[in-house]
């Protein structure tokens, strides 16, 4: 192999292995930043040695051994400095202890290490932005440049966010303990939130005119797949995976050639990715088998699955969707769920049912500037034949939109309501 080929091969191996490397090293040195440095050191060693020695049979193990040697050197040096006035013999004993501890740590399951690294990256001491960034960097293995691009920000901003996050983790000594019992459940919730945040950032870009940044969806799906692979007994992990696999199955169908959003009933279902729907249904079944049918993500996945199973929009089982929303409203009460529930009821039981559920929501302060509310209202009124009111609602929704494609779509719906009363545009 030519040197450049070897270099590419080393970098690819490193990309595949780095999350597990950093995870194993983090357990040893209890410092994510240091673990990352040690992993990088191992990469540098590999880049220097592999061109002459060839790529080893088990490159992952080789990288881990190289990083471990570095870790031991550092620990020894740190001990020596700490205790340079103490007895030499005692220093050596301490050093040996450290080595033994590291060897013991390495024997444990690597999957646990990776899971723990995910828990650390999504630790509640960090801000949601920091959790997302650290997870994409450490677990998904994205470069700082890639993260900056995905979040429409600059590389120094991302780099600084990562540095600050590592510092926060280091200062909070408890961040490296593997969570147990109820604490574990709470921490898992944070992990699932982070993955769903990443997915949604890609699925419904809130900034810019590009409706889908599919790369972020793919990363979130990969994170969900990794999580269910290393935490195979967590029903909500499967619930979340089911939800995002099914939602992602519609990525090709939900934006038209002009960049405008296409609503579910109008999507070309032949474009839905049946492989992802199948994977989503499988993950949902697994969540249910594990006793998690009532989980917030599993319920949302079950709703998405109703759409995924329907061959045409008319085949949609809206009664089941309405009843799933009834349940979801009890599990995670929120104004947004209430609104979606109103939409489901309007489809299952008629626009009057929808309007009745919508009325109290219009009084809620939290939904005052929430675009989907006037958009749904416009739709119910349109179906009721109350075109003038529908038009006003669609226009109100369009005024709230920060996305050109979405705004055009809403204005088009407004225009479909027929001639407007005279309006003055500013």
């Amino acid at each position, binding site marked *: 192999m030519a040197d450049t080929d070897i270099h*590419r091969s080393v970098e690819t191996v490193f*990309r595949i292995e780095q999350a597990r490397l950093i995870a194993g090293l983090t357990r040893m040195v209890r410092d994510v930043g240091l673990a990352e440095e040690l992993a990088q050191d191992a990469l540098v060693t590999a880049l220097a040695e592999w061109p002459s020695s060839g790529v080893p049979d088990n490159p992952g193990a080789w990288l881990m051994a190289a990083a471990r040697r570095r870790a031991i050197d550092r620990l020894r040096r740190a001990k020596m400095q700490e205790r340079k006035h103490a007895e030499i013999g005692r220093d050596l004993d301490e050093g040996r202890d450290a080595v033994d501890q590291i060897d013991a740590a390495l024997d444990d399951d690597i999957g646990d290490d990776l899971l723990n690294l995910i828990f650390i990256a999504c630790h509640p001491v960090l801000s949601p932005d920091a959790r997302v960034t650290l997870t994409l960097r450490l677990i998904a293995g994205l470069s700082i440049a890639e993260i900056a691009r995905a979040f429409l920000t600059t590389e120094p901003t991302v780099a600084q966010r990562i540095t600050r996050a590592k510092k926060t983790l280091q200062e909070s000594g408890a961040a490296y303990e593997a969570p147990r019992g109820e604490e574990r459940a709470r921490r898992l919730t944070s992990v699932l939130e982070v993955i769903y945040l990443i997915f949604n950032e890609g699925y419904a870009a809130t900034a810019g005119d590009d409706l889908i940044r*599919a790369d972020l969806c793919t990363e979130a799906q990969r994170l969900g797949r*990794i999580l269910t*692979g290393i935490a195979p007994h967590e029903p909500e992990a499967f619930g979340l995976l089911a939800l995002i696999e099914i939602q992602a199955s519609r990525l090709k169908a939900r934006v038209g050639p002009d960049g405008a959003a296409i609503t579910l009933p109008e999507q070309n279902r032949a474009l839905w990715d049946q*492989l992802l729907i199948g994977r989503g249904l499988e993950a949902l079944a697994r969540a249910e088998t594990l006793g998690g049918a009532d989980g917030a993500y599993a319920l949302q996945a079950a709703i998405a699955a109703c759409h995924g199973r329907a061959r045409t929009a008319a085949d949609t089982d809206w009664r089941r969707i309405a009843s799933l929303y009834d349940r979801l409203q009890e599990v995670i009460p929120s104004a947004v769920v209430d609104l979606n529930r109103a939409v489901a009821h309007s489809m299952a039981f008629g626009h009057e049912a929808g309007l009745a559920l919508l009325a109290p929501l219009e009084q809620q302060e939290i939904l005052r500037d929430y675009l989907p509310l006037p958009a749904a209202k416009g739709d119910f009124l349109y179906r009721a034949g109350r075109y003038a009111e529908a038009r006003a609602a669609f226009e109100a929704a369009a005024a709230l939109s920060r996305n050109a494609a979405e705004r055009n779509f809403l204005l088009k719906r407004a225009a479909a309501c027929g001639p407007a009363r005279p309006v003055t545009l500013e």
Partner: protein
Amino acid sequence: MRVMVIVKATQDSENMGKPKAADLAEMGRFNDELRKAGVLLTADGLKPSSTGKRVAFDGAKRTVTDGPFAESRELVAGFWIWEVKDMAEAVEWVKRCLNPMPGPSEIEIRPIWEMSDFA
């Protein structure tokens, strides 16, 4: 990107009855590794071509032929669909697979057309 990873048939796979439990277990371990890395989307093995059929097209004409088919190297014995970052990652994962056949064999990696290819 998505790739189809194609295990090419050999004389052995063409003559094979049911796959052996030990081989399945070995492949299961590799699949587990792929799953934990978030790479594996789906996988399946194909029965020998003696159970297959071919439909040849020539203008409006359709001619059906029964298997087995010659040129086992050109036949498919099984496939995976993977989600990987690039072809280099797919190659790296394939290298980690044990030889799927008793004798010399070949695995082919083909990228699947994506929405972005048409943008």
